[in-house]
């Protein structure tokens, strides 16, 4: 039986949150470089050049790619057959992830961007709590995926409950409209995660999960949704918003769509906007 040591989870997460915040992964860099070739606007080209220069400096100097080093969001898949080892005084897996986040944000000189109460707004001082989504899966898998989610792009996201009659067109128009409304705010070129179906909360979770798909720009295995992704990317890139909203061909790097069964009376859809600083990293034990 696979044994998962809480201390090891904590230590791995401490490194993971730093690495994700200092280094854009190759799949993201590759898409950005491809898009640089397609960009026609001089301002857009200059922006993409700065984004690539920034990635080099951040990696070399271990500096945050962006000063908004995000909420620490985790998706944890735990196999039903793994054994959990509560070592080093860590009483729960949540504690292990929280401690790893706290230590990583401190050690990496990352920004603490969490307030303890949404209305009274006092900073918690250590970038916790971590935002953890648990998934129990068969077997002895233990996989953690981290995304550093900045506020600027997250704020441009949306959920809408459609009547089924709105159909595919309704959903696609909603995605394009959400990107258009976001304009220059979410630091385009953006990554667009779309969740279709499920219910109110599930659609939002699907949209976030869609962002996590690797490599960036790969397509849904269902050809119907793969086609939708291609069409949406083209429509969003025709908006003209361009890198940083200064006008240009490249407004989005990728669109990922995930779908799930839903109620006969509803068709929820969620759009989670992510910026070019797409900081996603996983590990398995």
């Amino acid at each position, binding site marked *: 039986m696979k044994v998962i040591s809480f201390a090891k989870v904590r230590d791995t997460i401490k490194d993971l949150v730093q690495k994700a915040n200092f280094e854009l992964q190759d799949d993201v860099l590759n898409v950005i470089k491809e898009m640089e070739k397609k960009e026609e606007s001089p301002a857009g080209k200059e922006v993409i050049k700065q984004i690539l220069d920034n990635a080099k400096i*951040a990696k070399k100097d271990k500096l945050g790619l962006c000063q908004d080093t995000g909420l620490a969001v985790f998706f944890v898949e735990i196999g039903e057959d793994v054994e959990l080892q509560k070592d080093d005084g860590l009483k729960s897996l949540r504690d292990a992830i929280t401690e790893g986040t706290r230590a990583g944000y401190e050690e990496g000189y990352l920004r603490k961007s969490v307030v303890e109460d949404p209305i009274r707004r006092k900073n918690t001082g250590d970038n916790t709590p971590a935002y953890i989504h648990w998934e129990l899966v068969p077997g002895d898998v233990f996989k953690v995926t981290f995304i550093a989610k900045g*506020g600027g792009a997250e704020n441009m996201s949306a959920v809408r409950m459609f009547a089924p009659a709105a159909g595919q067109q309704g959903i696609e128009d909603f995605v394009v409209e959400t990107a258009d409304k976001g304009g220059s705010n979410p630091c385009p070129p953006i990554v667009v995660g779309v969740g279709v179906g499920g219910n109110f909360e599930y659609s939002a979770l699907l949209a976030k999960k869609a962002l996590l798909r690797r490599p960036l720009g790969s397509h849904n295995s269902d050809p119907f949704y793969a086609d939708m992704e291609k069409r949406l990317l083209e429509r969003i890139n025709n908006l003209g918003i361009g890198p940083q909203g200064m006008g240009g061909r490249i407004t989005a790097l990728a669109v990922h769509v995930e779908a799930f069964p839903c109620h006969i009376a509803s068709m929820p859809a969620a759009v989670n906007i992510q910026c070019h600083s797409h900081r996603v990293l996983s590990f398995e034990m």
Partner: protein
Amino acid sequence: MAEHRIETPVSDETVEKLRAGDRIFITGYLYTGRDSAHKKLIELVEEGKELPIDVKGQIIYYVGPTPARPGNPIGSAGPTTSYRMDSFAPTLHSLGLKGTIGKGSRNQEVKDSLRKFKAVYLAAVGGAGALISKSIEEAEVIAYPELGPEAIRRLKVKDFPCIVINDMYGGDLYEEGKKKYRKE
């Protein structure tokens, strides 16, 4: 797309030369401030009290940097989204603030106040905080240290890169850029 090297404090004559789409390199001092610091500044104005900084001729940079590593003046320091400061900007322009730096579009009141008080809105590249930090030579907290990343800092900058989004003549790079490349 003209290029200008400008120094702070900024005069009306300098602002008059700037057009939406121009590239700017700033040398001198910038003051940082975002949501909470702005709220405090505006409260002081409303109470008729003196501000901890004299904004006349100055530029405010909307940024909440990451902590500095030992030996560095500042951490990653790119712009934050500006619309959250829209309700505060006109008051500061009326006190002589000549520019703000952030990212993302401003509302009509801010654009009108640029025209009225001769000021500009500039953008730095969001998500390029590591690169931008290289043009910051010194940083000093001068007000509200309790706000952490949101404290007001004075930054000494050299050739700090940005682009004019809104000039004092109504020019708007976001609108013009989008129109140019939009395909219906």
